[in-house]
């Protein structure tokens, strides 16, 4: 029981940490592009990014399974060229989780960048600094509270993910079984003490993360943009 418990928690946190790390790496350049691009179809891209916030996880999960299936070209290509099958594996769950948590990373970063006056970016350019130096040394530190919010929200959202993991990964102990699914499973088996342990850990971690966001953001409230 203890090994299964530890294994489930390990997979839960591995999934949440991997999702968050991948998303911060994708999210920063993507939010920058969304903020400053004049691409005409940008509203459609914004809508697509926000879709996971309004769609049931089962819809995304269903489409992910369709894409992963070796009967379709992407799944077939992965299987033939790389001998990779994504359905019901940790890798498949991770990709689905990245897509599903995308808006939780992008939205705070995008809003943070949009709230900055253009003059900050322009001042840095006229002081001879490149776009990348401006982003890393001026814009990113100026939206620090948004970065913290984005990371914490993505992490908290990923450790609590249920629907999409169940659809894409199933409930395979040691591979795709995460805490939220384990709670459901234990309750179904009337094993309430195990369910309680999982639930308490998820509750405590989420609470600590959200409390951190609010206290850190309070500290930076005084950082008005001059």
């Amino acid at each position: 029981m203890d090994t299964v418990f530890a294994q489930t928690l390990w997979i839960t946190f591995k999934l949440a940490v991997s999702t968050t790390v991948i998303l911060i790496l994708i999210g920063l350049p993507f939010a920058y592009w969304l903020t400053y691009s004049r691409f005409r179809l940008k509203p459609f891209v914004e809508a697509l990014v926000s879709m996971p916030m309004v769609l049931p996880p089962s819809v995304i999960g269903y489409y992910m399974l369709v894409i992963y299936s070796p009967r379709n070209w992407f799944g077939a290509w992965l299987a033939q060229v790389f001998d990779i099958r994504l359905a019901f594996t940790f890798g498949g769950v991770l990709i689905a989780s990245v897509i599903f948590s995308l808006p939780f990373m992008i939205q705070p970063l995008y809003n943070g960048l949009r709230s900055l006056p253009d003059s900050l970016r322009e001042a840095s350019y006229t002081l001879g600094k490149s776009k990348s130096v401006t982003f890393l040394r001026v814009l990113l530190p100026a939206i620090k509270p948004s970065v913290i919010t984005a990371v914490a929200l993505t992490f908290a959202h990923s450790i609590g993910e249920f629907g999409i993991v169940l659809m894409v990964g199933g409930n395979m102990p040691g591979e795709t079984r995460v805490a939220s699914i384990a709670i459901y499973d234990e309750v179904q088996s009337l094993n309430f003490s195990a369910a309680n342990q999982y639930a308490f850990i998820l509750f405590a971690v989420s609470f600590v993360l959200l409390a951190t966001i609010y206290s850190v953001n309070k500290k930076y409230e005084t950082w008005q943009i001059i």
Partner: protein
Amino acid sequence: MADHLIEIDIEKMMVTVNGPVNLAVKAVIRKGELVAIFGSSGAGKTTLLRILAGLIKPDRGLIKFGDLVLFDSEKQINIAPQNRNISLMFQDYALFPNMTVEQNIQFAQPVRNCKEVDKLLSVFGLAEFRKRKPNGLSGGQKQRVALARALARKPQLLLLDEPLSALDSEMRTKLQNEIAQAHLLSGATTLLVSHDLNEVFRLASHVVCIENGIVSRSGKPGDVFSDDSISGKVQITGQIAAIEKNDIINIVTVISGNNQITKVIAFENDIENLKIGDRVIAFTKAFNPIISKLS
């Protein structure tokens, strides 16, 4: 084109609150001068500065700094803001909120030089605030940091966009000296956007007036803002603040310089073409004014 001149000949369609206006500026500026760009709001002053800084691309035209072409629409040359040796001081100062006063100045340096930072901090009276973030500074202090930061870049062209507009009149007068000092210190050509006559007279050796997107007049401030054809004893240039009817005469209140109020008596036919906000010149020929020093 001579090496000591800056040549500007650009056109840009601007969208303003009063509809589209074509900014068409043709001007030649001598290097090393402090030039004021004067005009009412929406005339295109800030757009001109942003075009010079490379932040806005003109529709057509040419900008040359001596022999160096910064923009040429025919040859499709448009040097990026990073590569123009220009500093623009923004109206909102645009100080970086995550950096201290010292770091803001350091950031602007092409090559890190701590002695130079110390010098700028002491020249602008900022030494004691060096470790403070911009949020902990007063309006005047922020303005000084922005000025020091603009100089730290060692620009050939210093662009100041209404640098004193956010300050009260007392602080304005004080900081005008600092701008004059900054201009001398840098040796750069300085372009100052202003709609304050007092500021233009005090600081600029040359003024370019922009009205509705075109240069209406340019020259020395004294020549541009007063009428040499009037052989009067006293000339007061200002803006009409009020026109009040008093029996058969009218009292026109003119505000000039640093909130100096002058009341002029005018008859009905004198004020026919005048309205509040018009820039006017009041002069007298009959009496010799007496000037004496105030104790």
